[in-house]
């Protein structure tokens, strides 16, 4: 290596060390902890073993939580992508250029409400005496207040609200990077506007879709607050189970094992979306 290369290493070293010491190291410790399952006496076993993982997969209730977590994540990801794409497209392609920035800022403004408070605000909004029910009653769309809160759909609602904003942002950014001349060229060559959209715009905006989808997956599957506040315990998701292991059972081995299983799913999602991902371009 020449002198200049060493200089570069010097500048990147603090950041690298930080990640190594405070992220990769702790995750390796977690792997180790998950391989020392608790004994009957409630202390970590001195032997290495897959007991914590075996215990997880032999408990139908735990496997159910894993399935519920994956299903919720998929539903949320699909819904927020499908809802946000036309929204982002409208901002990027219908709103006049000078208003676009404002339209986008308005679309992501509630992003900055406190994360814990946001779920609580939804709970107030969808309660039987909340604004939503009041409005539906006033419009004579329903006769009795609907029971909207405290079920898995309320959890999904809370998630979709948040990720609608995030996905709108990533998709908008990606739509703006497309050279408008491509689509015009396609139209000049005789393509219908639909064909131009599906042939040019949609494929070229995939990085934004994939980035938004990936962030949605990562943040949904690891979230504890939203299901805890909105879900009403009709189903438990994996992070809730993990917190129970920590708060009630003091079983860090199981909690570690479950967190790593959760991370493995995120890794699968990453591999699936990898070819479109542009994480550094957020």
């Amino acid at each position: 290596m020449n002198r200049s290369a060493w200089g570069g290493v010097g500048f990147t070293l603090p950041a690298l060390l930080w990640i190594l010491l405070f992220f990769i190291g702790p995750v390796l410790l977690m792997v180790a902890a998950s391989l020392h399952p608790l004994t009957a006496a409630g202390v970590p076993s001195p032997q290495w073993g897959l007991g914590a993982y075996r215990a997880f997969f032999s408990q139908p209730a735990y496997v159910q939580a894993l399935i519920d977590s994956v299903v919720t994540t998929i539903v949320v990801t699909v819904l927020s992508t499908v809802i946000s794409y036309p929204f982002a497209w409208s901002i990027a392609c219908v709103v006049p250029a000078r208003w676009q920035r404002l339209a986008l800022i308005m679309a992501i403004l509630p992003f900055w409400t406190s994360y814990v408070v946001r779920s609580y605000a939804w709970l107030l909004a969808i309660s039987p005496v909340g604004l939503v029910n009041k409005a539906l009653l006033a419009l004579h769309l329903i006769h009795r207040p609907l029971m909207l809160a405290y079920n898995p759909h309320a959890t999904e609602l809370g998630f979709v609200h948040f990720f609608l904003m995030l996905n709108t942002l990533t998709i908008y950014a990606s739509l703006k990077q497309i050279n408008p001349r491509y689509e015009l060229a396609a139209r000049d060559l005789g393509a219908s506007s639909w064909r131009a959209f599906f042939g040019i715009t949609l494929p070229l905006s995939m990085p934004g879709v994939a980035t938004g989808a990936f962030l949605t997956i990562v943040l949904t599957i690891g979230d504890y607050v939203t299901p805890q506040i909105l879900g009403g315990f009709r189903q438990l998701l994996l992070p809730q189970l993990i917190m129970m292991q920590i708060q009630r059972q003091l079983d860090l081995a199981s909690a570690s094992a479950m967190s790593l299983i959760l991370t493995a799913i995120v890794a699968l999602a990453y591999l699936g979306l990898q070819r479109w991902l542009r994480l550094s371009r957020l």
Partner: protein
Amino acid sequence: MARLGFTPRRFYGIGASGFALLLGLATPAAAQGTLNVLTWCDHEDPTLLQPFETANDVKVNFKDIGSTADALAILGQSKPGDWDAIVMDETDTGRLEGMGLLAPLNKADYPFATIPSQLQDPSLTSVNGSLYSVPEKFGYNTLAYNKANVDPAAMQDINAPWQPQYKSRVAVYDYYVPEIQYAALALGLNPETISDADLPKIKAKLEALKANAAMVGDVTSTQQALTTGAVDILVGGGEWVTAGIAKDQPNLDFTIPKQGGIRWQQGLAVFANSNRKPMAVKFIQYILSPEGQARLATSACYWGMPASTAAALTPDQKEILRWKDQPDYLKASYTYLKMTPEMDKKLQALWAQVMQGK
């Protein structure tokens, strides 16, 4: 030069003044003593703590627990001496003492003459004749309901929440101990002596309850469900959910069904390895004083009956808490289970299975 963002001097000037501001903020206030308490949320009310903190120049640190199991998990992650006092379900006194966690207390330090006999039963407060825990607050896990929407007379039957007419109008409080005992009582069992053989029946009963319920939730979410009209009945509810909001929600009420109900009772104890035992004792004395009892009974998180009859409550507050009904209620209610760690594990597993079931 327009592309130069800031001049260097301005850039570092901003940075330095920001840092100085932060240092000012981060400087700790005058040093003072501390007392570390594991507690349910009702002891965290500043109106309760501040008079004690000011009088003794001490800062009370607390960590929220929602069951004795929570407390044990926190203790497991702490070093000996980290904690000074605990507010716990008093039925767990024997169990914690058996683990060597608690320090013996001197009965003469506390106003036991003002505490009803059912509350100071030695099986709750003492082990082998020595006192380990002082009763401080109690109430009921029975039925809370909205009397605008359900017939109060129907709530006199402990099996009411299982009735099909209340389908999806029922909430269940997420605390496995009283809920399991409530189900046992509804099955005609003695809820203070549940055995392994009873568990399958209880599990089926709870599953049926969950199937009829709209939600299961903690203190806040069940209270919210009841106040917003999401549900009409709260199983495991009592004065702790209705009393604090009685002024705003006069339709919320609670009862003890004719078959009886479950009584919760909090006790204060000092940890054996605490380094601040005298201050911990002072804290208990403060909580048991007439003012402390009144503030605790009406604390922000949830209301409850004070253990001491000398509590300085107003007539209004006594009315809301059903002060004069207490002798009857005490007779009609059962205490929480006195649990072994094995039984606790089994009940937690049972509850988790019920929660997970569809």
